[in-house]
């Protein structure tokens, strides 16, 4: 187990952990806005760690650049789609809900 | 030179489709005339080359066989491509006068893609190429059915599309298993290397079910009556006469190319029972239909039953009976194509006369519009199989083959089927003989429509006189050689 292997496995595990946290956020958060927040932030960081782990044992420099390009593109795409979903949700005037409020309270408070 | 001739049947309609899409609508008729003429001339040239030098096979792209796709010319391919040329040109001519300008503009691209697919299927000797040809055929047929733009046409098109997709998936599954077992896709190599193991048996099972679904054989036929009955007249003529024959043609190719040996009897009699029930059930349903076009559509179901009867009559022990069965089947296919197209066009003319779809409105028609009824009658003669027509020769050969092998069940079914088909055709006639006091209040379809319907019916009768030419073609090339 060389040092690089250890570093790689740590990075991969933490990356996967971030993905799990992201999807956990998706399940737990009450409304769309916070869910988008959870997904875009956690998953990007998770992907960054995994890409870092892959770069450690990649042989050619070009391949490393390609991996970084993938990461940059995913970040751009998720930021854009996150914004679009939030923008569309705002158009449909979806309410911002507190964690313990149920659906009816929000609609009554909203009128 | 032969390379050009063998690929023209596919290239010409494809060029026709491209040009009819690009040029404005007014050039469509000229394009149709030129390309149809080219197709007929090419078919005649292939016929002469075939009768001179026998079957010819050429691999596309100049590669060796397992790599490239082989197109071949043999008796069956020539007969079927000439049949599709004749029927398609008459249906195109009929559509030119029958359809409104807007519909006609959409009709031509589908017509040319349909012809491309048909000629590919007649000529190709490669399993996967047949699959792509079948898909192209299905989509152009669905496009033609959906041309009606009304509720029934769309429902029929959807039902037809889903049934055909399931059928071609079964066929593709068969290809997957056969390729895994034998490692080749070309039909000729497959017939040399073929041996009936469980994998190839399952493969052929799926292929036959898929192809039977696309040919609307008895249990899998529910999509056909609304599709053929509900669509525009030239479309239902094209569908009934040509489209269902393409998947049956592949079934026949597989049956003749692959040596089944002793269990050919089991598979053949299974398919024969399906065919027999199709004849009885189809004729029975046609008998108690009230709509004219539905009667003709259900009679197509019955006639498909006759084609399926070829398989049980095949026998390896008695070569002459085997030859009779094949010749009878091919003649039945040919005469049905001509007669059914003529019958659908004549039924379309009758609808124009009465512009009501049910039978009771036909009263007094034979007095005032004898030509249309005559065309319908001639086509009916060939469907029933009365002596002068091609249908009779086909049935006669099938009966001979059944007698030779003393297979009484199929004999009885053939005769019973002819009786039932006579019943529902005379039923239509009985309505036209009723006198009406109202006199001649029927519209007059344009002469072109009447004569094109009559020409197809007369052709199916003439086939009876000149069927010896067709049979020479079949005997010329020893059928076993691909």
């Amino acid at each position, binding site marked *: 187990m060389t040092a690089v292997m250890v570093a790689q496995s740590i990075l991969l595990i933490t990356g996967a952990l971030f993905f799990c946290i992201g999807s956990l956020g998706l399940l737990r958060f009450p409304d769309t806005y916070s869910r988008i927040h959870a997904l875009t932030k956690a998953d990007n960081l998770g992907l960054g760690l995994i890409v870092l782990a892959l770069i450690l044992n990649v042989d050619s420099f070009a391949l490393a650049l390609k991996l970084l390009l993938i990461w940059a593109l995913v970040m751009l795409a998720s930021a854009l789609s996150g914004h679009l979903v939030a923008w569309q949700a705002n158009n449909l005037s979806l309410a911002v809900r507190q964690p313990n409020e149920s659906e009816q309270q929000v609609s009554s408070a909203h009128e | 030179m032969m390379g050009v001739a063998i690929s023209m049947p596919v290239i010409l309609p494809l060029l026709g489709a491209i040009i009819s899409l690009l040029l404005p609508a007014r050039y469509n008729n000229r394009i149709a005339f030129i390309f149809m003429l080219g197709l007929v001339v090419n078919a005649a040239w292939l016929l002469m080359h075939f009768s001179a030098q026998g079957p010819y096979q050429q691999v596309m792209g100049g590669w060796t066989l397992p790599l490239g796709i082989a197109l071949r010319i043999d008796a069956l391919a020539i007969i079927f491509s000439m049949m599709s040329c004749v029927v398609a040109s008459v249906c195109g001519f009929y559509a030119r006068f029958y359809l409104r300008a807007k519909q006609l503009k959409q009709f031509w691209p589908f017509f040319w893609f349909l012809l491309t697919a048909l000629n590919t299927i007649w000529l190709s000797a490669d399993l996967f190429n047949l699959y792509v040809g079948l898909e192209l055929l299905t989509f152009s047929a669905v496009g033609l059915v959906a041309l009606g733009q009304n509720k029934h046409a769309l429902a029929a098109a*959807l039902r037809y599309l889903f049934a055909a997709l399931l059928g071609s*998936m079964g066929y593709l599954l068969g290809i997957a298993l056969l390729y*895994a077992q034998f490692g080749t896709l070309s039909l000729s190599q497959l017939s040399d290397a073929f041996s009936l193991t469980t994998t190839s048996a399952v493969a052929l099972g799926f292929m036959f079910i898929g192809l039977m679904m696309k040919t609307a054989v008895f249990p899998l036929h529910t999509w056909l009556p609304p599709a053929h009955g509900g669509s525009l007249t030239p479309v239902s003529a094209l569908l009934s006469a040509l489209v269902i024959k393409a998947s049956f043609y592949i079934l026949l190719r597989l049956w003749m190319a692959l040596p089944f040996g002793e269990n050919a009897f089991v598979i053949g009699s299974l398919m024969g029972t399906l065919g027999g029930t199709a004849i009885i059930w189809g004729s029975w349903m046609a008998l108690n239909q009230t709509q004219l076009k539905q009667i003709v559509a259900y009679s197509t179901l019955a006639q498909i039953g006759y084609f399926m009867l070829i398989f049980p009559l095949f026998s390896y022990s008695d070569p002459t009976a085997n030859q009779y069965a094949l010749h009878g089947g091919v003649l039945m296919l040919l005469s049905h194509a001509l007669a059914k197209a003529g019958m659908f066009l004549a039924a379309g003319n009758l609808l124009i006369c009465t512009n009501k779809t049910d039978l009771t409105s036909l009263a007094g028609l034979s007095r005032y519009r004898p030509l249309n009824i005559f065309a319908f009658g001639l086509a009916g003669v060939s469907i029933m199989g009365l002596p002068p027509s091609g249908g009779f020769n086909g049935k006669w050969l099938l009966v001979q083959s059944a007698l030779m092998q003393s297979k009484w069940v199929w004999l009885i079914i053939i005769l019973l089927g002819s009786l039932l088909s006579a019943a529902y055709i005379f039923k239509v006639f009985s309505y036209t003989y009723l006198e009406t006091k109202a006199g001649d209040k029927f519209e007059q379809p344009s002469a072109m429509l009447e004569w094109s319907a009559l020409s197809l019916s007369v052709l199916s009768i003439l086939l009876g006189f000149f069927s010896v030419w067709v049979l020479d073609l079949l005997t010329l090339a020893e059928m076993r050689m691909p």
Partner: protein
Amino acid sequence: MNSYLIFSYAGVALCGIGVFGFIFHSHLIKRLIAFNILSNGVFLILVGLAQNAQKQPDHLPQALVLTGIVVAVAATALALVLIKQWYAISQQTTLPEDQEHQ
């Protein structure tokens, strides 16, 4: 090498699920999804079985599957256009004969 065979079995399972969905669903788009699953299953069998028999990655079935995927997309697009036109005319998402026991 027998990993190819495992994927052929996965293809068989996909075919089973596809056939079930195709026959069971009367909603046209769900039936179309089942058809796509069935075609993916058939492609898996085609490549998996051929490569298992040839004992090496075989290029011909892969080219066939490429053509098959494009034809499947064409079929899906055609079916979707027809379904939308059918819905526009009849306000139904199922064929007339499937409606009664909805």
